[in-house]
């Protein structure tokens, strides 16, 4: 199969705001794609469209050759697409480990089992391993409500990666994560994902992260793709520099 994800003329507007405007991209298996763009450029909306949270006004979304345009999040997820969120979406009344165990059970397709316990030795072990790269192992037993903002962000990513997706979309994975941690986390995460051959699309404002980890960069501006290519090329593009980086 040539591509993991294709969009064709994807368009979405909110009232008078054209958030995503005729976006067509094709992403190959194993690619790690960074999306940059000014605030309000439509990056999150793009991710929301691809994962079925929003319905596009126009355009099609093809995942592994299948049209998933009108599919709701659950079905998209079932096909092997996972995502993290700009605003962490976690289970706030549960502990860190319980959050992950639920994800693991979901991946195993066991979510609707009502008799066997969620917390088995095997799952717990796997969950703790999963939390390791995010530095959350020591917080495993803590209620999520006690985590600092950065911790929530990392847990959110951990939940997405627990699903072992083929395509992973991360919305600003390092915003809120301190500079002391973000590179360490990204290093481990990216190497794990690469080893598994996961295709990754991540939205990011930190250009250091983008240049370090993305093999290809999409620059969004006002809902359109302004530039598409290798990080060095795209970030050097004068239009991108003006719109995204703020250099005249």
């Amino acid at each position, binding site marked *: 199969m040539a591509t993991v994800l294709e969009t064709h003329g994807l368009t979405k507007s*909110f009232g008078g*705001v054209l958030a995503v405007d005729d976006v067509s991209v094709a992403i190959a298996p194993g690619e790690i794609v960074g999306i*940059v*763009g*000014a*605030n*309000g*450029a439509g990056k*999150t909306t793009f991710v929301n469209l691809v994962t079925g949270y929003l319905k596009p006004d126009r355009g099609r979304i093809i995942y592994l050759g299948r049209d998933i345009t009108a599919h709701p999040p659950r079905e998209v997820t079932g096909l092997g697409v996972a995502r993290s969120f*700009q*605003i962490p979406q976690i289970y706030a009344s549960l502990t860190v480990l319980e959050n992950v165990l639920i994800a693991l059970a979901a991946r195993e397709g066991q979510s609707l089992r009502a008799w066997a316990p969620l917390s088995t030795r095997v799952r717990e072990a796997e969950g703790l391993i999963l939390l390791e790269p995010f530095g959350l192992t020591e917080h495993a037993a803590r209620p999520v409500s*006690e*985590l*600092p*903002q*950065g*911790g929530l962000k*990392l847990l959110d990513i951990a939940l997405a990666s627990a699903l072992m997706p083929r395509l992973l979309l991360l919305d*600003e994975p390092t*915003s*809120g*994560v*301190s*500079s*002391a*941690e973000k590179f360490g986390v990204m290093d481990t995460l990216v190497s794990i994902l690469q080893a598994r051959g996961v295709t990754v699309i991540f939205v990011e*404002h930190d*250009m250091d992260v983008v240049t370090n980890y993305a093999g290809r960069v999409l620059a969004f501006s006002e809902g359109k793709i302004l530039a598409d290519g290798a990080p060095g090329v795209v970030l050097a593009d004068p239009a991108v520099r*003006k*719109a*995204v*980086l*703020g250099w005249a």
Partner: protein
Amino acid sequence: MGVNALEVKDLSVKLAAFVILRGVSFAVPHGSTVGLVGRNGAGKTTTLKSIVGLAPVLGGEIRLDGRDLTAVAPHHRAGLGLGYLPEDRRLIASLTVEENLRLPLWARGERGDGARLKLAYDLMPELAPLVRRRAGALSGGQQKMVALARAVVTGTKLLLLDEPFEGVSPALSRRLAEVIRSLQGVAVLVTESDANRMRLLTEQIYTIERGEIIQR
């Protein structure tokens, strides 16, 4: 009135069963910008929250213009000129941007347009196209900008900005930094996890780790 707009002395804070801040002391002189740098969970947010009155103080002093705030109710602190930008923005989603910005004026019983609101609009012309939109519909970075504007409207004496650049594009970061630097007569306390980025804003930096100031 001393030289410091804000003075924090020996501040200790306990959340749930954990002591989060231990003997934190620092000062923000009038009209200057001071940075608080630390990694995730160091206690930056907790520090700011205890200054605005959202975290219970176990011990120590928080002085604004020499006046101890620890016994002052949060809404009175706002009245004393404290402006706060929470790291998770926390706009009132169902109100418009304009209404969000006017809330502090209404709370003060101010009629008319309010000089601070005008200041905020002047400083951030980017707000103009957003004013009529529901705050909840904005993108993350747009919300951050509105939250900064809201802090500017409230904070006549001291701004407390919690990671104002997180989730903000480099272009906008630069603009916001400019805005912060151009504020006249207002002391600013900013948190950040990246000391280098902080240096773009100020040289007065405190580093916090595990709830303690380890270096200034």
